[in-house]
């Protein structure tokens, strides 16, 4: 079945997304970008260009490059908005015979919806190329404040582009869908959408099966680009102050500044300080001039504070018009790249006293929501076979009480994992398998699910027997643990029901406990490992002594024996540092013996020693 796509047809940028493997995914265009500029042009040689290519030639061809046509779609020529935007847009706009708007591109007059259709057609073709299949159906989003005529025009644009438009969806509704907020009942959601050039506020009410728009507001001429301009103005003013040169008169410098200003703004969303560094920005009679400033996050916030404050004023006004108070709002959703700015997030959080939904990419959340709506229409959700996951890690207790995890938490079941273990002592003939569940690194902090003993292991030095422990969880969450001695084939197993059937509270409690004890557990774990290391080293020392008794010089023997005694003394009662120190001492003494034995071997070995060396 061909896929239904979701399209965010934006004022400056557009995106297309599709459901894949149960999740919404934004598709890249032919140029490899996830966003396509909503720009169309007729080039000087009569070719129609769409997207980034149209934008690249805009400056040489401003009269024939149509951008921000969303401001005009479905409107009447006499609308106040059209009259205002007409003054700001460089292309020709006239009244159509039916009272609508027409724009001139090349020698022809086009309806705005025809321009949008060209953008949609490019999105369609690029997506088809990417997916390797035909696309015929789409959901297209529009601002919540779009009236019937604007919606109809958007739908027609989709149809001209070759889509069957299954639905025209509100952008804020799409954003809410992307966050799964449609499942809540009787909730009020505010969507704060601060895009590149427009700022939209929408208040939504979710009731049974419907999402209703309760109010809209905003400013169609306020956006992230205003922030970039502020940063640029600041740099120009600073440079004028320091160097007495007006960079705004230097087109080449301006070009470099523009990109740098945006980059600085973006960086300050994650960093507290950024460097604006443009060597050789310009030159005059006295030689080249370099630009180097530090801009802090606080400074940036000072520069754009007025815009943030203004956006909050607009939010309050919209709430008031909808007869809603900030306390009535259950969820806040942030949309648009500019909402990555921490000061903006904080301001919104303060107003509603609520953590906003911001985990999804704010540039893509609308397209993703549209794709999710498409998935719902297509019944993708119904076909999915629901598979459970293990809520907590499953493991066994190993030497020193360590929890060795075999199946990590959040692993999809059914699943199986196995690992080979060995004995901790010489001539050990049985092993105990203690199955535990939880995130603590030490077995004792976790939930014990059961234990059993595998007997009849053939006597052997420690570390030699191979016991394979297998965990198998079936689709019903029943866990079988089997231990098998690889030498004798003897095995023993246990069946544990309901290993995934913990109550939500229990899972939460175990997770929280793991978090709470993280530090102390880590230390304990490290201590045990140090002790285990000490054990191994002691074992090695004793074995070396036994095997090589005659070859070791007496003084060295004495030294090692002392160190062994010292380690034994602190191993079980001393601090971790003391054990570590003793381990270090002993291992150095052993190394001395090692190199002594090696030298002896070399003296005897003759030619082959060269080879040995290169291997070591």
């Amino acid at each position, binding site marked *: 079945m061909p896929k239904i796509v979701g399209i965010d047809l934006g004022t400056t940028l557009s995106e297309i997304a599709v459901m894949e493997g149960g999740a919404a995914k934004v598709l890249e265009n032919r140029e490899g970008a996830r966003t396509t500029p909503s720009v169309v042009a007729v080039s000087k040689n009569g070719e129609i260009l769409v997207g980034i290519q149209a934008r*690249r030639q805009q400056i040489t061809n401003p009269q024939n490059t149509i951008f921000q046509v969303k401001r005009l779609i479905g409107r009447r020529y006499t609308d106040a908005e059209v009259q205002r935007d007409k003054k700001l847009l460089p292309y020709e706009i006239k009244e159509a015979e039916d009272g609508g708007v027409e724009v001139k591109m090349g020698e022809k007059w086009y309806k705005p919806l025809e321009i949008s259709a060209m953008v949609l057609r490019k999105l369609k073709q690029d997506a088809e190329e990417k997916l390797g299949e035909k696309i015929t159906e789409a959901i297209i989003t529009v601002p919540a404040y779009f009236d019937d005529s604007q919606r109809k025009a958007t739908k027609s644009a989709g149809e001209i582009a070759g889509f069957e438009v299954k639905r025209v969806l509100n952008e804020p509704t799409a954003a809410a869908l992307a966050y799964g907020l449609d499942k809540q009942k009787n909730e009020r959601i505010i969507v704060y959408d601060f895009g590149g050039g427009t700022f939209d506020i929408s208040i939504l009410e979710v009731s049974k099966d419907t999402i209703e728009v309760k109010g809209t507001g905003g400013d169609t001429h306020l956006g992230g680009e205003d922030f970039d301009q502020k940063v640029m103005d600041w740099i120009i003013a600073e440079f004028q102050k320091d160097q007495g040169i007006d960079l705004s008169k230097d087109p080449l410098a301006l070009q470099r500044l523009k990109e740098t200003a945006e980059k600085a703004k973006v960086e300050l969303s994650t960093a507290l300080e950024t460097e604006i560094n443009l060597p050789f920005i310009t030159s005059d009679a006295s030689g080249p001039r370099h630009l180097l400033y530090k801009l802090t996050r606080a400074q940036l916030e000072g520069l754009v504070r007025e815009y943030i404050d203004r956006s909050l004023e607009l939010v309050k006004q919209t709430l008031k018009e909808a007869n809603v108070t900030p306390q009535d709002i259950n969820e806040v959703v942030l949309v648009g790249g500019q909402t990555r700015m921490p000061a903006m997030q904080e301001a919104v959080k303060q107003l509603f006293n609520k953590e906003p939904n911001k985990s999804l990419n704010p540039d893509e959340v609308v397209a993703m929501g549209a794709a999710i709506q498409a998935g719902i229409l297509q019944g993708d959700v119904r076909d999915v076979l629901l598979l459970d996951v293990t809520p907590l890690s499953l493991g066994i207790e190993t030497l020193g009480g360590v929890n060795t995890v075999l199946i990590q938490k959040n692993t999809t079941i059914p699943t199986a994992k196995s690992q080979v273990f060995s004995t901790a002592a010489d001539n050990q003939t049985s092993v105990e398998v203690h199955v535990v569940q939880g995130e603590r690194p030490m077995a004792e902090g976790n939930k014990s699910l059961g234990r059993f003993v595998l007997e009849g292991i053939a006597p052997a030095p420690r570390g030699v027997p191979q016991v394979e422990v297998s965990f198998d969880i079936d689709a019903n969450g029943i866990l079988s643990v089997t231990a098998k001695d690889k030498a004798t084939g003897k095995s023993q197993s246990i069946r544990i029901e309901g290993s995934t059937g913990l109550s939500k509270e229990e899972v939460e409690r175990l997770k929280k406990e793991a978090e709470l004890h993280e530090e102390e557990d880590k230390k304990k774990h490290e201590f045990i490992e140090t002790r285990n290391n000490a054990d191994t080293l002691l074992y090695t020392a004793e074995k070396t002594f036994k095997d090589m008794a005659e070859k070791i010089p007496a003084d060295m023997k004495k030294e090692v024996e002392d160190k062994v005694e010292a380690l034994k003394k602190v191993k079980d009662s001393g601090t971790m540092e003391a054990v570590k120190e003793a381990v270090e001492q002993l291992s150095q003494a052993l190394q001395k013996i090692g190199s002594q034995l090696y030298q002896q071997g070399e003296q005897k070995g003759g030619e082959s020693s060269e080879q040995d060396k290169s291997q070591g």
Partner: protein
Amino acid sequence: MSRFYNSMDEEKFKKELEELKKEKDEYLAGWQRARADFINYKKEEMERIGGLIEYSQAGFLLKLLPLLDTVEYAERIIPPDMKEDKNVQGFLQIGNQLREFLKSQGVQELKAEQEKFNPEFHEAVGEVEGEKQGTVEEVVEKGYLLRGKLLRPAKVKVIK
């Protein structure tokens, strides 16, 4: 009587067998589908990872280009007599190191000057007077290809 019951049983078993067969087929199909899905997913994932590596390399190289731009601005701006200075020469030689490095990574400079303006590879940042209309007169910032694909368009001035 017993016969009657037997045939009833037979009917019942037959029906049950039918159902079980149907169920078995369904499960087998589901299992095969799941295996196939998984294998296909692995293949797609490998492709995706390959693409991702290429993409992240392109992203890294793209971030490196402004360094070379700056060196080239300097090359343009420093007066010829100053370029005789050994210290200046040394610094400008860093540009060659960068160019060599980029070349070794598969980055290739785009020819733009005196070419016909083409928005697939060029981004217009201004217009100038001149004779051949629609021709690139000046490259303000060089464009680059990465293994034949556009990495960054050239910023150019075009003849009006």
